């Protein structure tokens, strides 16, 4: 079917492309080895920043991720927060509920009385102008001071309720679910200790 020349040509072309791709991979592996530690440091710093923001009473966090199998699957991490005197003052929970346009990555601060101390949205892909407004302080700060079992109200939120973003009920419900799950996770973990 194919003569010797053609087969030689096929391998020549194949090896040329192989050479190009192999050298590219080599260069990329090299650059990656240079930048990976810096990127990891950046990510850790960003995470640390977010945690400090949601748990203002803390000045540092322990490294150990306290989650276990009994915690809801959307919780990815729970870190214990310590104040200046090295006493436990609360927990920072990383949770990712599913919103309208995908997962909403959030950090929730919960104090020892199981009240919310802060909510930070790390990443979301909700509708700009509607669900995306969940990152604004006006919305997030509603959760501060509330405790387990927060519900969403369309308007005129009462005690353990928050006002939904108008025309963005799904996003509002998702964030609330995230916060509630975070509180539940802390209860579970605190109970284990």
């Amino acid at each position, binding site marked *: 079917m194919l003569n010797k020349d053609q087969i030689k040509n096929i391998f020549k*072309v194949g090896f040329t492309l192989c050479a190009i791709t192999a050298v590219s991979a080599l260069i990329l592996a090299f650059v990656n080895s240079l930048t990976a530690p810096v990127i990891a440091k950046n990510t850790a710093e960003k995470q640390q920043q977010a945690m400090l923001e949601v748990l203002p009473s803390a000045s540092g966090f322990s490294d150990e991720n306290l989650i276990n199998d009994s915690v809801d699957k959307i919780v990815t991490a729970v870190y214990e927060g310590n104040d200046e005197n090295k006493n436990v003052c609360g927990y920072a929970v990383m949770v990712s509920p599913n919103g309208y346009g995908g997962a909403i990555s959030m950090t929730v601060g919960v104090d020892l009385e199981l009240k919310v101390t802060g909510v930070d949205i790390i990443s979301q892909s909700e509708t700009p102008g509607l669900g995306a407004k969940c990152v604004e302080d006006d919305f997030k700060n509603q959760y501060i001071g509330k405790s387990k079992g927060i519900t969403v109200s369309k308007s005129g939120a009462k005690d353990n309720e928050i006002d939904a973003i108008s025309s963005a009920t799904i996003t509002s419900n998702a964030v609330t679910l995230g916060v509630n799950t975070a509180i539940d996770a802390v209860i579970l973990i605190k109970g284990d200790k």
Partner: protein
Amino acid sequence: MNISDIVTAVVIVGATGLIFGCLLAFASIIFEIKSDERETKILDVLPGANCGACGYTGCSAYASAIVKENAPINACSVGRDAVAKKIGKIMGIKAEKVEPMTAKVMCGGDCSIAADKYEYEGIHDCLAASKLAGGPKECPNGCLGFGNCAIACPFDAISIENGVAVVNEEKCRACGICIKKCPKHIIKLVPKKNKYLVLCSNSEKGALTGKYCQAGCIGCKICEKVCLAGAIKVTDNLAHIDYDLCINCGECADKCPKKVIVKRDA
């Protein structure tokens, strides 16, 4: 990142490259269309801009046309003489041997001598005007003078003078774009060696033509009778010159009662 990670990356990506490279090479053999290798060589020397000024839909189409349809080898306006010479070498043609051509608008019916059948108030566009009962000119084959050809010409070789389009032969590179744009189809390619042209495209009976255009061919056949080379024939009430036979004697132009046959200012 340790050595084994790097090696894994290089091996996997390299292997992918190898597999796909071989696959592509294999596919190109299986799916190969037998093409004249001159076509590939010509495509290589063409500038690759795919601009269409040559009159073809792109460099590949032009290369194909040169090999298969004997298209003129000097039509590339981007590459000009340099490219024409290279193509000539590939095709075994001397670039100079190619007949220099020019486009000519075969209509002399300007505003002073051609009548209108209605007053046109609409878009100044030949195609649009031609849709309204063939255009404002009485003559069904007359130049409407709105300049679609002039706008289309990539070398600015066409201008509108007194209501008809006129081609500047020095600028014209015979790319053929104007010919495609004219809705009346009255622009033709003429070899530069022929000095005489019938500047009319009208095929209506002479009695009618004479009424609406003083520069229209009436099909009287005087030119046919006086032609020394038998190069001019009247068909469909219109004189046509066979450029291969014409010897440029000028008798037809002399004797034409309507002065439709003109001498080009070459």
